């Protein structure tokens, strides 16, 4: 096990474990689970660097830095960290956009972990089809493997109307074609791939096409951002989990007439904000389980689930 016992108990104590099937080729330890291929990674999302409204977040300059300090303080350091979009808050000025991206890059260089994956959000990429994003953070869709798990980063923000687009869908189908249907796959993306709440723009217009391509695979999970809160949904057999944001929370789906940024609560600073830890650990059958843990911006003594 790579996660500390203390952290693990914290997680277990607040519930929220997610069990999924995964690769069968993991070596089994005496207690029935593999140790060599267990891993832990962190998802951070919607940092909206450049956002400035003290009524919404009076610590807009400090929130991300505090979350980074929290990640750095975790007893078990993640193998990698994935930023699932809206790294910066949108600006029409291409110079200002690059300035925000440069500042963001400098701030996150404080992370102890240097293996970092970046995805764009519509705030980063929609004005220039991801041009500035690519200058700073590389490709907007890509794959990587980690300890037997295939990670697929899908860009659903660079196209004009919140779509993945036919070219990328074609790429996705080619990526998936050679994979065994049992292969463990983790999809990282910014917007929900299902119709969470289309009238609030909480969907991907052609997300169903990506889900259709993923459906034959038995061990898929999708991690995304965009809605600035936790949401757990299962489409067919595929669970989709959104993460909290790190600048402002948004209301629960359709809980308010409008999708407004929720104002700062002085009684509970950083309320509704945070990041996520994902532990991939071989289960008793040899298949891995993913255990998700929510963390606040500052250490309040445990995960929030």
């Amino acid at each position, binding site marked *: 096990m790579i996660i500390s016992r203390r952290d693990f108990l914290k997680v277990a104590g607040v519930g929220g474990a997610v069990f999924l099937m995964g690769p069968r080729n993991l070596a089994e330890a005496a207690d029935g689970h593999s140790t060599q291929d267990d891993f832990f990674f962190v998802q951070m999302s919607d940092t909206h660097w450049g956002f400035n409204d003290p009524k919404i977040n009076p610590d807009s300059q400090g929130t991300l830095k505090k979350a980074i300090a929290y990640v750095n303080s975790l007893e078990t350091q993640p193998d990698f960290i994935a930023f699932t979009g809206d790294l910066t808050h949108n600006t*029409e000025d291409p110079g200002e956009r690059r300035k925000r991206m440069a500042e963001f890059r400098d701030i996150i260089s404080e992370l102890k972990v240097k293996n970092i994956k970046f995805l764009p959000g*519509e705030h980063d990429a929609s*004005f220039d089809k991801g041009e500035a994003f690519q200058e700073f953070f590389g490709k907007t869709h890509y794959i990587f493997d980690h300890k037997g798990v295939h990670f697929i980063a899908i860009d659903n923000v660079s196209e004009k*109307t919140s779509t993945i687009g036919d070219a990328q869908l074609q790429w996705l189908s080619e990526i998936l074609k050679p994979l065994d249907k049992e292969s463990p796959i983790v999809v990282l993306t910014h917007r929900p791939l299902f119709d969470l709440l289309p*009238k609030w723009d909480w969907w991907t217009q052609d997300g169903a096409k990506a889900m259709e391509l993923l459906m034959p695979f038995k061990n898929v999970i999708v991690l995304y951002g965009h809605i600035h809160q936790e949401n757990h949904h299962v489409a067919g057999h595929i669970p989709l989990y959104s993460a909290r944001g790190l600048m402002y929370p948004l209301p629960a789906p359709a809980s308010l007439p409008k999708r407004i940024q929720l104002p700062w609560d002085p009684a509970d600073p950083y309320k509704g904000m945070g990041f996520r830890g994902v532990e991939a650990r071989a289960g008793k059958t040899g298949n891995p389980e993913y255990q998700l843990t929510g963390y606040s911006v500052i250490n309040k003594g445990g995960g929030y689930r």
Partner: protein
Amino acid sequence: MRSVSGERSAGGLIIILFLICLAVDVFAADQAEQIIRITAKKFEYSPNEIRLKKGVPAVLEFTSLDRLHGFICPDLDIRTDINPGKVSTVRLVPQKAGTYDFHCDIFCGEGHEDMAGTIIVEE
């Protein structure tokens, strides 16, 4: 008797025809397309509240006053690009009374996320 009766029937027929004409007229007026002209500009639609009658064909005519915008009303399954200097038309026959939110689905600027409105379908 006959002629009187005939006169009566003729008079009755005229009245009935008149009533039919009236009814058809009212019906036709009711069924005429509702045409709504909507302008889009950073970052609002005008009007941003559109009232439609259930079951009556509606034509929404959009023009942009500045740049490319989008219009999407997911729950009514309608969308269009809105270009400057061009009318984009969306046709629908609303089937169910209710309130339907729409928004701009093309990132058009810093206030893009507030660019939204509602369609109210009345019985």
